[in-house]
Every structure is written in C-alpha cells, then in structure tokens.
C-alpha cells in the first residue's frame, strides 16, 4: 500500500547515492527543519483561526469574516500587523532576559514536535525515551514564563509568572503519572511502540478503568499545563490584565502566543497518541474486515482528526468555564488529582501484570 515510509526511504536512499553520507545527513536535517518550522507556522495560523471561530459560534457571533473567504486570512493579517509593530522593551526591565524569554518559549514548543508520530512512518525522531523526553522538555516552558514575569519589572507580570510556576510544576506531576499509566500498560516509552501496541484497539477502550481515569486526569493536567481556561491564572485578564506577557508587544508577544497554541497542539497530540492510538486507525480486536476498511483512511487523517478533536474539547472548556482561584487550583492538584493518579498508576500496574486488559 502507498505509504509515507516508502517516500522517506527512497529520498534517503537517493540522497545517499548522490552525495557523501555527511552531506546527505545535512540535507536531511535542513529538509526536516524546514518542514518543522512550516508546520509550526501553519499550526499557529490554523489554531488561532479555529479558536476564534469556535468561540464565535459558542458566543452567537460570526467571528472574523472580512479578510479573505470566510475570514480565513484574518490570522495572516494579524501576523503582519504584529511583525510590523514596534517591540517595546520597558525601561527598568532586565533586557537580556526580557528578550530571551519568548525565544525559550518558542524553542521548547518546537523541540516537542520531534517525537510526535504524525502519520505511519512519519516521525522526526523516534527516540527510545519519547514520552520521558516530552515531559522533560515541556517543563522548560515554565522557565520562559518565570523569566518573562521577572524581567518585565511589572507587578502584574510577576504575580502571573509566580502563579504559572506553581501551577505548571504541580500539574506536571499528575500529567506525568497519567502518562505513566499507559507506559506501564505498553511496556515502552517509545512513541512508535505505544502506537503499535494499539493496533487491536485504542488504550482508552482496551485499558479498562485506569486508562479512562488517566485520560481524564491527562486532559485536566494538559489544560492546566498550557495555561488555558479554566486554569489560565497566569494571564487572568480580569485580575492581572495580561499576566506574564503584560509588557510584551509586537513579535515577542506573537511568539508567546504562538508557543501557547503549539503547546496545545502538542499536548493534544500526545493525548491522542497515548489514549486514542495516534495515527492508528480505529480497530476492533480481531474484526479483520472492519479493521481493513478503517485502514483505507490515511493515517495522517486519523492523527490530525483525533488531535483536533482534543483541541476542540480544550477550547470548549475555555469558552464555557469560569476561572479557578489560585488556592483552589493547587488544592485540586495536590488533594485530588495527584492521589487519584498515584492510585491509578498502581491499578494500571496491577492490570498490566495480571494481563487483564484486552
């Protein structure tokens, strides 16, 4: 069958034939890098548009509808505006850290794209500790937020950054534990193994109750980790005007904005990979005929469909829930989610050892 794996392999073979191995590798790096950056840009444009349209329909509005067909080019116009705007650096700020913070935010978001399997045989870096890598890199994002808040020399920014620090560090725990529940069931940290293990059904359905609990915990923790409502305390526009990025303008603000949306995409992609089978089509056990029909839908469609479904859910949260207070937010994590996910991990381990899952 037609597969992306064939294409990548033939390109690799051709490059190695035509050039020396070192140059071939360099060219491959450039190709992959360009693809990653363009994916990044496209994701930013698509997700911002999606958010605006989703919120518009939830709020009985039309949303952007002037620039281009159905307002599709609105985000392009916004990007151009942000590019042309002056990037102010406030006096009294720590200029080096102030300028570094958005760059770190965007780099950490970009690095996270590496281990994600976008389609069958289409993955930048299938490293053997894929899941661990993801949770490690995603914690780097908090540094950029703390940096931005501290260096802005603004009290709103500082408060927002401190909130964000407390929040992300706490929710990392239950996100990690809920990921571990699936890792225990799979027995591997490698992304491709996790996807391959779901050939007979997604973990959400195969993994009994622990997988369900882990999924719900993961979605909550993911929402919190990306600073989205109802956990958007770092921004909290009605309390802290704009939180940690109050002082940012122009392209530096755009970088934070873009990093936020790409982070949403990544956590949803991880969620889709772990619980909904990544690019794996919807398979039911040994029903060969049914599974075969499902295989005809391209794997990339499966992956993006699942991811965008999860993104929609997270946007849905944002436009319907009020915001939590900082103490309630931390209570939720330390008093409820963390004990639940610890217990859940034990349960998942028991199920994995006994082989009770499907």
């Amino acid at each position, binding site marked *: 069958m037609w597969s992306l794996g064939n294409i990548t392999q033939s390109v690799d073979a051709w490059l190695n034939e035509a050039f020396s191995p070192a140059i071939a590798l360099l060219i491959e790096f450039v190709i992959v890098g360009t693809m990653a950056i363009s994916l990044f840009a496209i994701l930013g444009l698509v997700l911002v548009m999606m958010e605006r349209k989703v919120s518009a329909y939830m709020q009985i509005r039309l949303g952007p509808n002037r620039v281009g067909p159905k307002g599709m080019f609105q985000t392009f116009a916004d990007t151009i505006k942000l590019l042309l705007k002056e990037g102010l650096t406030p006096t009294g700020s720590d200029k080096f850290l102030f300028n570094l913070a958005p760059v770190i935010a965007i780099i950490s978001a970009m690095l996270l794209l590496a281990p994600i399997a976008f389609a069958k045989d289409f993955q930048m870096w299938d490293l053997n500790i894929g899941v661990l890598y993801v949770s490690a890199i995603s914690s780097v994002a908090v540094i950029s937020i703390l940096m931005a808040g501290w260096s802005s020399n603004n009290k709103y920014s500082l408060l927002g950054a401190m909130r964000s620090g407390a929040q992300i560090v706490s929710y990392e725990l239950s996100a990690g534990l809920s990921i571990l529940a699936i890792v225990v069931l799979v027995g591997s940290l490698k992304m491709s193994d996790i996807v391959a293990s779901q050939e007979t059904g997604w973990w959400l359905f195969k993994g009994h109750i622990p997988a369900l609990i882990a999924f719900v915990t993961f979605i909550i923790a993911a929402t919190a980790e990306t600073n989205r409502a109802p956990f958007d305390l770092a921004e909290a526009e009605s*309390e802290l005007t704009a939180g940690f990025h109050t002082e940012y303008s122009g392209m530096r603000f755009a970088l934070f904005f873009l990093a936020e949306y790409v982070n949403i995409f990544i956590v949803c992609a991880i969620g889709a990979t772990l619980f909904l089978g990544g690019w794996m089509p919807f398979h039911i056990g040994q029903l060969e005929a049914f599974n075969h029909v499902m295989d005809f839908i391209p794997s990339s469609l499966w992956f993006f469909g699942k991811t965008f479904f999860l993104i929609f859910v997270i946007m849905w949260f944002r436009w319907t829930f009020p915001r939590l*207070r900082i103490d309630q937010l931390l209570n939720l994590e330390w008093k409820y989610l963390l004990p639940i996910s610890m217990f859940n991990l034990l349960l998942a381990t028991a199920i994995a050892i006994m082989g009770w899952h499907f």
Partner: protein
Amino acid sequence: MLEEVSVIDQGDMIINIGPQHPSTHGVLQLVVTLNGETIKKVEPHLGYIHRSIEKMCESLSYRQFIYVTSRMDYLSSHINNHGCALCVEKGLQIELPERAKVIRVLMDELTRIASHELWWGAMAMDLGAFTPFFLAFRERETITDIMEDTCGARLTMNYIVPGGVMADLHPDFQRKVKAFIKLFREKADQYNELVTGNIIFQSRMKNVGILSKEDAISYGCTGPTARGSGVNCDIRKLYPYEIYDKLKFDEILETGCDSFSRYLVRVKEMYQSISIIEQLIDNIPEGDFQAKTKAVLKLPKGEFYTRVETARGELGVYIVSEGGTTPYRIKFRSPGFSNLSALNHMAKGGKIGDLVAMMGTLDLVIPDIDR
C-alpha cells in the same frame, strides 16, 4: 474606617488596579496592598470621572436637570430620571395620571432587568467566563430595542418629564415586551445552567467577600448588596412610590452574606421584575401620559427629598429650593458610593481573584459614584 494604621510591612507589595483595568468596569483606581496573593488593604481612589453633575444641575431648570442625571448611573438612567421627577413633582404637588405611573413603572422594571443582565454578563466575565457576556447581551438588546421604540434612545433614555412621561408608548410596545418575557423565560434557564450551577463558579463565590448584616447597615449599603446580607432595604416595599404598593412582588432576601448570595439576589430580582411587568403589561390604563404643568416650573421655597430603588440600590434626590426656576442646591445619594466603601472590609484576607469577584457583586458603575 477608624483603624487607619499602617499595615505595610517588609515584603508587601502595593499594586495599582486601575484606573485602566479590565475588571474595574470604569475609571476606578484601587490601591491594593498585597502579601503574596493575599489582600491586606484595598483603598479605592475616586475622582477620575467627576463631572460635577450636582453643580451643573444648579444652573439648569427643573425640566432640564433631569436629563443630566441620566449620565450618573447610565445603566439605570431611567430610574435616575424617575427619582428626580418624583422630587420635582413632590415640590409642585402634581398629581400624575394613572397611565403615566404605569408606564414609568414598566420602564423602571425593564431598565432593572437590562441593568442586571449586563451585570450578570460582566460578573461571569470577571470570573473568566466570556460566553455569558454575549448571552446576556442578546436579551439586553431586545430591551434596548423596546426602549428605542418608545423613548428614542437606547441607553440614556431621558423619557421622564415632571408630570409624566415625554411621549406615549409605541404601538408595538406591548407585543415586544411580551415577546421579551417569553424569550427571557426560555433563556434564563440557560443562565442558571451555564453559570449559577457551575461548580467552579460556586466555589469562587461562596464564602467570599463576607459582609455581615450589621456591617452592611453600618456601611450604608443598599440594594442587592445589602439584601444579600439579609437587610430589608427595598425602597419599593418600604416607601412605595407610584403604584408599587398595589403590585405583587417579593423583596428578595438572602442571608448568606457572601458574594454568592448577592449574586442570587440579582438573578432572582430579574424574575421579580418580569412578574411585575407581566402584571402590568395587559393592564395599562387609558388616558393622558402627562399631567398638565406650567411651562416654567418653580418649586416653592423649601427642601425636598425623594428616594427610589435603582438597580444598584437606593438613590436619594435632595433639592433645596429658594423659589426660583433653578434649584439652589442638589445632592444625590448614590448607591454605588456606599456600596464601594464596604469593599476594603470585605476584601481583607482574600485573594486577588476574590477581589474581582467581590467588585463584580457590588455592581459598581463608576460615573454613579463620582457623579
């Protein structure tokens, strides 16, 4: 507050919320002393939108000054006008035709609903939920349309004149109001589902911003703010004006003393206003909409005071007349000012997020406080 001692310690942070800030709903400046996220002191600074309305009124005739008051509490401008007109009518001892009274009350209650609708949306937005704001505006828009038909304006209606109302009702009025009642009854359940029943919303509002009954009285709080603490203070019940004594409605009292009970009072008041409108809409008496008055009004020498229940609380209008065509002195007792004064007391020990929730439940309109 007599306990004005310095509370600022080492490590405390003083933060200015406003005059330009999304949650102060206007140009209010709060100087907040924080210890981490915990509030130690809130100091409201006023005067950013002071337009000396009271002084302006002294140079305007008794017909003219009423319209300036629309700009005080712009969300219940009709009720402001009503209070002023009542005061002038009291001085001149004008007897109003029944029809004028009913029209005034109908408009009052519509204004009250419109004001509470906007408050409800803004309240949810303060707590971080955007969608209710748009839902509230959908219903509020139908009211402003009704107002536009009859009064010619959508926000500052200027519909009331001494002796009645300026023009007769629009022929569509009854039909549109009935349509609105139907719409409201349908949509209000959605409100309760989306906001009132939401667990996050409740946990943000309950046991936050405690204002005991004694404190509410001693700070001079009125309106839904005080009724949320169980204080009987509905002017429509205590000192009925126009035809309120003939109408059946309840004074909503909640005894939770927290932000959530203040919220509930306002939500339930909307239903009470709807029931008042339902009682009146089919029984608007025929007749004149305005009593015969002289072209130039001159109040007799003396002092006159009336009060009305606006959407925010008790509005007192005090006119001192020397017998001329303009008032010698006018003083408004605005509800927002007294309600705001309780903020420091309520906010102490809370978090910044609580401060926003409390300010929301006080339903502040800054031009009403500053005048």
